[in-house]
């Protein structure tokens, strides 16, 4: 057995947590003093890091499948263990069926399937910011689904305080009551003038184009979102596939 092989056995003992405190200390001292040994140590550490990354990635995929399954149906309080184990398999099967059954659809239908109003996560009362009666009324009406009233109030509010959160909700409220051209302008402004929520604005802008039947514009934005690394990417790719 050559020296390198001995060193590797030593490193395996270290990384497999089979050394006592003294042995570990001696090994770490050698890492400091012995350059070739340090290189072997770093390589071993890197490979184990890559293994851990793969494990994390697999579990991330599992949680994503679980989340998708939870969104589809509420979890029964009994047989949860079975549910968890089956979640990934069911999700996989559902995705496969959805892909097989997916056919080019009517843009309006696709809009209806994919549009969900953005949640009101901007309510300033929660963040301890100063509010006015107009603020409270606008957010309350939005949350209660009184979109026509909310759109007027949010429009007035945005004129007073040009805030990206208000503009996001305004665009959504306009879209909900069928004022698509106004919604489009809201999302274009959000995308062009603000640094936050611009990517979310692109998603909603693509839905506006679908609603008005401008499929080419919608596809252009969806393609851009689909090629990005953001959380809307998979949804955008899925929708793009259906628009084609």
């Amino acid at each position, binding site marked *: 057995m050559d020296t390198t092989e001995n060193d*590797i056995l030593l490193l*395996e003992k270290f*990384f*497999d947590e089979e050394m006592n405190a003294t042995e570990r200390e001696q090994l770490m001292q050698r890492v400091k003093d012995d*350059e070739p040994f*340090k*290189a072997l140590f*770093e*390589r*071993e*550490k*890197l*490979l*184990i*890091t*890559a*293994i*851990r*990354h*793969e*494990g*994390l*990635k*697999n*579990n*991330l995929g*599992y*949680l*994503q499948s*679980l*989340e998708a399954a*939870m969104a589809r149906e509420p*979890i029964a309080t009994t047989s*949860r*263990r079975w549910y*968890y*184990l089956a*979640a990934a398999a069911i999700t996989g099967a559902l995705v496969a069926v959805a892909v097989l059954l997916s056919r080019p659809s009517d843009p309006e239908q696709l809009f209806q399937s994919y549009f969900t109003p*953005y*949640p009101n*996560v*901007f*309510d300033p009362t*929660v*963040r301890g910011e100063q509010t006015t009666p107009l603020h409270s009324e606008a957010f309350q009406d939005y949350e209660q689904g009184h979109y026509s009233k909310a759109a007027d109030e949010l429009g007035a509010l945005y004129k007073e305080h040009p805030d990206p*959160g208000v503009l996001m909700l305004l665009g959504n409220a306009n879209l909900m009551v069928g004022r698509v051209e106004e919604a489009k302008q809201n999302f274009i402004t959000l995308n062009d003038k603000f*640094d*936050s*929520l611009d*990517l*979310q604005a692109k998603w909603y802008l693509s839905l506006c184009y679908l609603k008005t039947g401008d499929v080419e514009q919608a596809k252009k934005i969806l393609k851009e979102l689909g090629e990005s*690394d*953001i*959380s*809307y990417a998979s*949804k955008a790719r899925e929708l793009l596939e259906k628009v084609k």
Partner: protein
Amino acid sequence: MQSEIIEKIRSGGQAELAWIYEEYRQEFLHWIGKEYRCSSDDSKDIYQLTILIFHDNIKQGKLEHLVSSVKTYLFGIGKNIALENMRKEKRYTPINQEKWLKEYLIDDTSQGTDESFFDMAKTALEKLGQPCQKLVEMFYYEKKTITEIATAMQYKNPETAKNQKCKCMARLRKIFDTEMTKPQNVVPHGYH
């Protein structure tokens, strides 16, 4: 109670991961959405990373006892992820989860590791194939004992599983070294 949860996750698998995910999901998503102006999708991305880090800390033996509640601990991780993402991007941007996990591991374990070496290690792991990949993952990520691995992967006995694990690691090193010597990958480094 807290130690029971930790023990449950430490000795468990994906079913326990799913259980903890569901346990705090609703409360966490509501809180992070309001606090950091995240959409529902963005909040879920952060929550998934939070649960993975919590799970990983327990598996790696970094978290054995909790002085606070699990909820406080999870909210703390979530807050750090949201703030770190805002700081890096100078604004709120949806998180690229895989990239985030990679940076988390590199920061955590490999001081000064170049990302290109990490990518080569990942390529080597892909080339390693099954069942080796599963075996080393069970050992180094899931922290299963050799006896547990022998049972799960149907090896004759723990010694056979241990030998197999050593052989797989030897193959992985060899593939990695070959990757490093490919002309497009040759850069000055300290791994040889």
